[in-house]
C-alpha cells in the first residue's frame, strides 16, 4: 500500500537475567534493528529488570494458523512422552519450582 507510512514492525524479546529464556514482551516500529533496539529499550526495558534484548523483524517469523491449532492436540494419551518423569526435571523442581505437576 503506497499510502502506508508505517515503519517495519519488530517483535521484542527481553531476558531478565543471564541464562533465562528470552520472553516476548511486545513490538515496536523502526527502520532497522539498531533503532528498534533503542526504541524497545525505553518501551520495555524501563519497567523491569533486563540484561539482554532481542528484536526480530515481524516478517521474519513464520507462524501456524489458528485454524490449525488442532494439530497440537493429542488424539490418544501420550503423557508418557511428557518430560515429568525425568530425574533432572524432579531435581529442578526440588530446587526452585513448587508448582503442582
Amino acid at each position: 500500500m503506497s499510502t502506508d507510512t508505517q515503519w517495519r514492525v519488530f517483535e521484542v524479546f527481553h531476558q531478565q537475567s543471564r541464562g533465562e529464556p528470552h520472553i516476548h514482551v511486545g513490538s515496536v516500529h523502526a527502520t532497522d534493528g539498531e533503532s528498534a533496539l533503542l526504541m524497545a529499550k525505553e518501551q520495555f526495558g524501563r519497567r523491569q529488570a533486563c540484561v539482554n534484548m532481542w528484536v526480530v523483524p515481524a516478517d521474519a517469523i513464520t507462524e501456524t494458523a489458528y485454524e490449525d491449532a488442532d494439530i497440537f492436540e493429542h488424539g490418544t494419551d501420550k503423557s508418557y512422552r511428557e518430560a515429568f518423569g525425568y530425574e533432572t526435571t524432579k531435581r529442578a523442581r526440588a530446587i526452585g519450582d513448587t508448582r503442582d505437576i
Partner: protein
Amino acid sequence: MPTEAVQPSVTPAVRSAVIDLLYRLADDSVILGHRNSEWTGLGPILEEDIAFSSMAQDKLGHAQALYTLLHELGEPAPDANAFLRTTEQYRCCELVALARADWAFSLVRQFFFSEADRIRFELLSQSAFEPLAQLARKLHGELKYHVMHGRMWMKRFGQGTAEGRERIQTAINAVYPHALGMFESTAQDEAIAAHRIGPSESEMQDRWENEGGTVLSDAGLTVPKNVKPVYGGRAGKHGPELAALLESMQRVYRIDPNTQW
C-alpha cells in the same frame, strides 16, 4: 543533614568550587529535562515520543540528585532551589533554555548535550569529591543510552533523505554557538581542576569537539567552523526563554511553597 559531617575533609575553597560546579550541572539538568518534557505527546512517532520523554525524566532525576548533593553542603532543599530561585540566580547554559523549536532542533540539542554530559560524568566518576564521584558512577548507564540514542539519529538523518539531512544540518548550524556555551568557564574553573574535583571547561570542550565532531563527520554532516560561542548563562545572564520557562515551571510551586506534596 548536618553539612560539615558529610565531607569532613572539604576545605572552604573546595566547597566553593564544588558548589559552583554542582549548580551548573543541576541547573542544566532540570532545565533541559523540563524543555524536553514539552515533547511528551507531540513526538514524531510513538516510540520516539516515549524514548525522548523518558530521557527528559532521566534529566529531572539527575537534577534531583545534584540538588540533593548541594543541600548536603548547606544549600537550600532541592524543591526550594529549583522552584524559588530567580532567572538571574540560575547557572544553566543558554543551550538548555532555548525554546524547543522543531523536532530537529530539540534532537540536535539533546545530541550535543548528551555527548558532553557523558564525557563530563565519566571524568567526574574520578572526582576527588567522593559524593559526586559516586553519583557519576550511578548515572553511567542512563547517559550511555542518551549518547546511543543521539548518535543513532544523527547517523539516520545524515545518511537518509535529502530533506532529513538538510533539516538536521540547519539545526546543527543554529544550535552550535549555544552548544559551545556549555563550556563557558567560571571563576572556579581553575580551582575545580586544581583540586581534582572535575575537568576544566577547556578540556571538556576539546574532548566534546573531538568525539561529537567525529559522530557528525561519520554521518556525512558538517561541523560548523570558527563559531563564536554564546556565553552568559554561567554568570546568570539569560535570554527571555529561561524567564518564560521558569515562569511556567515555578508557577504552581510558588502559589504555596509550604504545601506538602
